């Protein structure tokens, strides 16, 4: 009986999907989330939450502290690669180094500032100056 059923199942000629009639026993094979080898959707390992072992900076697990904000110092590199070039009484000069070309930013407490582009090939020549 089982063999007959299996034979009828596998040997059936292709028919239109909407014309197939099922019985309750067929539900076992009608999985709602069948996983296929082919027809992969787009996915990324990031989405899978893959984690690499990351060494921690401190020896003890219990000694991690919230991020501290340091006092600005000359030579310090900020987020985005800006370097603190000069700290004045009332101003801060930041410097982006592109190799032979640099951007200098000046900031003042009153909100004003300027940007200068300087090329090292031609020292001290001001190419552009924007004030705001």
């Amino acid at each position, binding site marked *: 009986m089982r063999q007959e059923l299996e034979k009828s199942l*596998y040997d*059936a000629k292709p028919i239109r999907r909407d014309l197939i009639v099922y019985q309750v026993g067929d539900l076992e094979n009608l999985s709602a989330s069948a996983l296929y080898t082919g027809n992969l959707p787009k996915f990324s390992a990031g989405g899978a939450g893959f984690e690499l072992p990351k060494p921690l900076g401190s020896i003890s697990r219990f000694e991690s502290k919230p991020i501290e904000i340091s006092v600005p110092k000359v030579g310090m590199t900020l987020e985005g690669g800006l370097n603190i070039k000069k700290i004045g009484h009332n101003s801060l000069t930041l410097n982006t180094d592109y190799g032979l070309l640099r951007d200098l930013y000046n900031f003042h407490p009153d909100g004003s500032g300027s940007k200068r582009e300087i090329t090292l090939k031609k020292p001290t020549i001001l190419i552009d100056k924007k004030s705001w």
Partner: protein
Amino acid sequence: MMPCQKQAPKIKHLLDFSNAFYQDLHGYKPEQTKLQSIPEKHWKTFCQRTDLNSNSSGIYLPRNQTAIIQNRNPLSLFHEYFGHGLFCEQSLIGRKLVDLEKKLLEDEKQEFQNRKFSLKDLEKFREQNKTFQELKEFRKQNLARYEIFAIWTEYLLSKEFSLRDEFEMKYDFLEKENREAVDSVINFSESYGDLATFYASGLARRTTPERVKKLLEDVYGIEAVNNSKLILLTGSKKPFSDIDLFACSDYLQPTKNSWLDLAVFREENFEERTRLFETQVTHPIMAGEFITGNKNYLQQKRIQLQEQPITKEAIKYNLNLSEEQKQRALEYPEQSEERKTGLSYSETYLKNALALKQGLRLFTKEDLISYSQSERFIELKGGKIE
């Protein structure tokens, strides 16, 4: 000819070898997953009848935990049976998928028990079914995990059976994003080993000293592990908890992620903390399971803790640590995990200091908890809390 083929010897060999490989590596192998092989000439009809994608060479059905493969395709066997099958048995995500499918199956049986139905009827029923909606969302969220794991399983086993060329050919069609995702996991396994890749994928962790040692050797290198003075297994050792390890080592780096938590103390620092009865060190010494290192040294430290004098310095040291942890904890927002953890450590150090002051040597966290409970009992008896 019978429509449903018996498993050919080759498949049997693949199954036997792979089962032994998994048992040895993990301490488990697929147990509940069923395997069905369908001859190539019947594949399309089977897929049509069961509303499955006939372009695929294999299918896994979570509701009855069955891997169905076309003919005797070894890569499909690896993907469906050892990939999806094992994932659905031995990972929390896989188990949830199976549970949701089984629940939906019961709802569907209830609905269609006395009548015939078409796929349209079934689809209509599912659309208004809450379990189906939950299942749809859950599957969408985790599809990457299922597929990456199954493809990586193919990669892993294809190496064991010299089928790497077939694997490369099969996945030659992968789109750039998918290729990168698969490559990143393959690179991970090449860098950190098979066991680490299984654990990072969320599979159950049945820890034994031998297995943990192998894992550490793969992740940190044999030399770093062998040069370490002491590595101990601590923590709950539950299959879905992280693996808690303690090391006295000048060669390992501390690591913490969802499946591995390795605390490392440099040798000199470890000696100092042992002398001062610090719980972070005394607990693993007394309760940890030996993984590797110098067993005699561990024994010496156990004896030292039992016999060394309790000094005022040790009591003060633990009191100071308690205060320090409390201050650090208070730097974090209320209700944050960091604050809760910090305060809990602060309390542990305080209990340890008080116990030491009474001349008690309480080495493990469990000892300290029962000590504090008995303290509370004394307080209540003495009528201090009214």
